[in-house]
């Protein structure tokens, strides 16, 4: 009897297919694009274009411990070690194509700065070095709670420009009907993704949160595709089943529910996972995978503009704190582990104040550690382990304090 297909297996198949298909397309002489991870894929999906995602690729390279030679190559070309390691890996890969997982070089690039402005500089360099067209969708930083009407108009006008440029690059017309279909499908997938993430609100959580980072790849690379819907359906079924059986992903149950704030440390992910397991910490959610929940009314371009503009990194202090506060409550968190990621300035430079705000609004315990999403040199295992132990101590202390408070409150005297 053939083994039952698990969502994990299907994910692996889809991801492998994603990369091989891209290569095959290039071989056949088709155009291939590179895009930033939260570019409005609706436009290129509508055009049926093959697109790969350098951030996703760099993460995969780093997780397979292939980052260092590329990082060193970038540095030898004059790139500062202080720059985002995804960018350094990709810019080096662009020249040498030396990686275990190959991706084809792009014929055009798509950039949306809703996660950072670093991307713009990085993509400018690709465009200049390869002499290829770059499409930029700039979403102005939301210093207020939401984008202004003028910002929405500007972004919509960029959508129009993006379509014009894509038509020029491909020589094909943009099909509005297909666009509508893609928007509908993308929303269905986003809803399913949100459902999968939210299932981890259950106690005990059915899924080890690190797994979310893996499933997230599919949301990055194929948010507007049917097969992603199938994968998520399978994942949801599995999670629901686990919840029904009251299964935790840790054998001895979950002692502590923690949110991982920031990107994973790909080169050390196995170590991190073991350290969590040792401490009985379950990462039940992360601020990161949620970024690919992009819900809007299909066909409503104002909403499309707004949802792509309001990615966490592109929002103001209050918005980010409100979001974290909700997560603490919904996921019944005991702690938040903040990754002070050497690569990602935009995630780090409001983080200290975020920690204070969230601590003041909730009773969650907070700890941070120094790391990097893809540069293995910027992480110290010993510090990480000590910080986890410290987090556990604070959580335990807070829990017992809370209990004794409850007892006192219940005391009829």
């Amino acid at each position, binding site marked *: 009897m053939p083994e039952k297909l698990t969502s994990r297996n299907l994910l692996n198949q889809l991801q492998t297919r994603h990369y091989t298909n891209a290569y095959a397309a290039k071989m056949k002489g088709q155009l291939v694009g590179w895009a930033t991870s939260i570019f409005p894929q609706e436009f290129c999906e509508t055009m049926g274009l093959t697109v790969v995602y350098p951030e996703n690729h760099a993460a995969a390279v780093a997780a397979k411990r292939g980052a260092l030679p590329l990082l060193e190559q970038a540095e030898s*070309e*004059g*790139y*500062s070690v*202080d*720059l*985002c390691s995804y*960018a350094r890996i990709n810019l080096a890969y662009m020249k040498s194509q030396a990686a275990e997982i190959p991706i084809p070089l792009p014929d055009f690039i798509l950039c949306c*700065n809703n996660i*950072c*402005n*670093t991307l*713009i*500089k*990085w*993509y*400018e*360099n690709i*465009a*200049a*070095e390869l002499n290829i067209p*770059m499409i*930029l*969708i*700039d979403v*102005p*930083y*939301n*210093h*207020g709670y939401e984008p*202004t009407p*003028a*910002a929405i*108009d*500007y972004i919509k*006008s*960029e959508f129009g*420009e993006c379509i014009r440029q894509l038509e020029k690059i491909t020589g094909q017309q943009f099909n509005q009907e297909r666009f509508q279909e893609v928007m509908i499908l993308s929303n269905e997938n986003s809803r399913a993704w949100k459902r999968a993430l939210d299932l981890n609100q259950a106690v005990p959580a059915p899924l080890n949160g690190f797994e979310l980072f893996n499933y997230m790849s599919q949301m990055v690379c194929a948010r507007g595709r049917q097969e992603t819907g199938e994968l998520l359906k399978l994942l949801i079924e599995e999670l629901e089943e686990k919840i029904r059986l009251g299964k935790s992903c840790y054998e001895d149950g979950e002692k502590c529910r923690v949110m991982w704030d920031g990107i994973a440390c790909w080169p050390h992910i196995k170590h991190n996972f073991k350290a969590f397991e040792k401490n009985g910490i379950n990462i039940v959610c992360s601020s990161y995978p949620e970024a690919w929940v992009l819900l809007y009314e299909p066909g409503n371009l104002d909403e499309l503009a707004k949802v792509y503009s309001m990615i966490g990194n592109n929002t*103001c*202090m209050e918005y980010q704190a409100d979001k974290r506060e909700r997560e603490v409550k919904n996921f019944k968190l005991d702690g938040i582990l903040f990754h*002070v990621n*050497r690569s990602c*300035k*935009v995630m*780090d*430079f*409001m983080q*200290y*104040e975020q920690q204070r705000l969230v601590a003041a609004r909730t009773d969650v315990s907070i700890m941070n550690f120094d790391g990097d999403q893809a540069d293995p040199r910027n992480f110290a295992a010993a510090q990480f382990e000590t910080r986890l132990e410290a987090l556990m101590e604070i959580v335990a202390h807070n829990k017992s304090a809370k209990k004794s408070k409850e007892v006192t409150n219940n005391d009829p005297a």
Partner: protein
Amino acid sequence: MTQLKDLLSVLENVANNPAQVINKCLEEKRLMIGCAPEYCPEEIVYAAGMLPVGLWGGSTSIKNANLYFPAFACSLVQTTLELGMRGVYDRLAGIIVPAHCDHLKCFGQDWKVAVPQVRFIPLAHPINRKLEAAVEYLKSEYFRIKSVLEEIGGKPISDQALSEAIEIYNDHRKTLREFTTIARDYCTTITPSLRHNVIKSGYFMDKLEHTQLVNSLIRELKKAPPEEWQGKKVILTGIMAEPNEILDMFEDYGLAVAADDLAQESRQFRTDVPQGKDPLEGLARYWSCMEGCSLLYDPQKNRRFMLKTMAEESRADGVVACIMKFCEMEEFDYPIYKKTLEEAKIPLLYLELDLVTPSLEQVRTRIQSFAEMISRKR
């Protein structure tokens, strides 16, 4: 000659002691608005009758700002926040903070919490700046800033006042362009550090007054014939060439400044604001017309060609990349123009600058070796 010396010392004094000028402003009861790096619509502030004051950090150690920034934020944002938290800017009626880079986006949000006594006036430029929609959008941002300033000042800002401010600023730009061209011929008198201070003083003065002083300086300079320069000349490129000590090092090793491509200097004044019926639109359009800065979207990286042309036209012997440590905007551009300059055989020096923990001795050694290397060249 004494007149020339006097003028230079006045400007230098302002650049080094902005507090004096600012006190004068307070006496005159003129409101002041801080303008954070790198591009603020100073004309709107000026039209409101207020004094725009350029805030470009300063050499200082960090005692407070580390509550907000880890050590790897650029020293411009670190030191500006530090000074703000120490109360140095308490006399300002507000601060305009653009969101050009990831550091500045966060800096503004942190400022709001860390320095609540100085009103935060945010600004987010459009990056796709060649689109007509970008002009419209930026106009809306400027309109909001104008309303905030009207509220602070308690009176409306008329279109006429805006147009006049633009004219005064364009005049100032023209004068500084002239100064930087003339300064090239008087490298003995106008040392790198003096050149910098002449420009920098403009951040703390009424532009009308600064224009007059610099014009007088130009007139005085021209009275003497161009000076023979035995040393070498370089172009400075980057955000800014501070801490101040480094410019003295250039002088020590016989290097003069042929031209600059610094955000704190020439990038502010090499383009004029287009004049037209709608002054706010002109200001917004200005952003679309500017070129050659790491903060301006440039997928062809034309900056590399501009630099090459600039080096050739000003007959510079080399280019010095003044890279503010942790500034991604500049760090990404560097490998690209490095290649272009290498191909053109134009010597290039990479200087990593830091206002917080400057490793001045290392910088000195690098400047010295570079100076020796280019002197041997021709």
